[in-house]
């Protein structure tokens, strides 16, 4: 569950793809390094809410997804599921993009 969007302006209410958020774990599988009610940082990679690219393309994913990262921006885990947009590479999340099983090339966003 998202608690706060990092680096967001005062009037930005919601996080978008590529934003880093502070979140708390609500539900975790039993034998995992992270447990329930731990506060972590994550970067949003997919949203159900459509987002508009600079060149007018509107993209919508099938689910909301985020990848848990540490303070520097490296993913905590070793695997990532689902499609990731290539543009995350430009936001210094290259490791996440390289782990992705499928990547999507959208021309430019934000």
């Amino acid at each position, binding site marked *: 569950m998202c608690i706060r969007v990092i680096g967001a302006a005062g009037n930005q209410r919601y996080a978008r793809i590529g934003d880093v958020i502070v979140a708390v774990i609500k539900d975790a599988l039993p034998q995992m390094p992270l447990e329930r009610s731990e506060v972590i940082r994550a970067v949003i990679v997919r949203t159900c809410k459509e987002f508009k690219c600079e*060149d007018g393309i509107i993209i919508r994913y099938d689910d909301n997804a985020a990848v848990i990262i540490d303070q520097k921006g490296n993913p905590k885990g070793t695997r990532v599921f689902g499609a990731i947009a290539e543009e995350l590479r430009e936001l210094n999340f290259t490791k996440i993009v390289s782990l992705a099983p499928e990547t*999507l090339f959208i021309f430019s966003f934000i």
Partner: protein
Amino acid sequence: MRLEKCWFCSSTVYPGHGIQFVRNDAKVFRFCRSKCHKNFKMKRNPRKVKWTKAYRRLRGKDMTQDTTFEFERKRNRPERYDRILTEQTLKAIPLITKIRHERQKKHITERQKGGKSMSRKKDAKELEQDLQMLPKKDTVAYEATKQKVIVSQLKTEENLMEE
């Protein structure tokens, strides 16, 4: 920039139009407008929806196989840039689209050709069988053409007996 086809209705999606939906298996569905997007969300099959190109092609209403479609097929091998080739391609594009449209029109007129004779046959049958059902003003001309034959009852001995 690339002109895509709408997944639902097969019309071209120009930049700045429509929505792209990315499913979790990374398949991208492009829609030209919200009508197609909403139909997709309703899980409708475009092959069953009458106004889509998929339906029309499936039912043979529109032209399916033609050499002009070969030009637009997507090739995944990149072509080395050749100025002369590009120039010729740009000149050829409007010609090819014109030819394709002509052929598509022809396909449709060919398809509709049998219709007139069929409707005439149907009308003739209706005049013959259901003359009473038709409105009087329409059948006056037809009735005038029919010759009235007077049938006189032959006076035989049997008839005289009945009376």
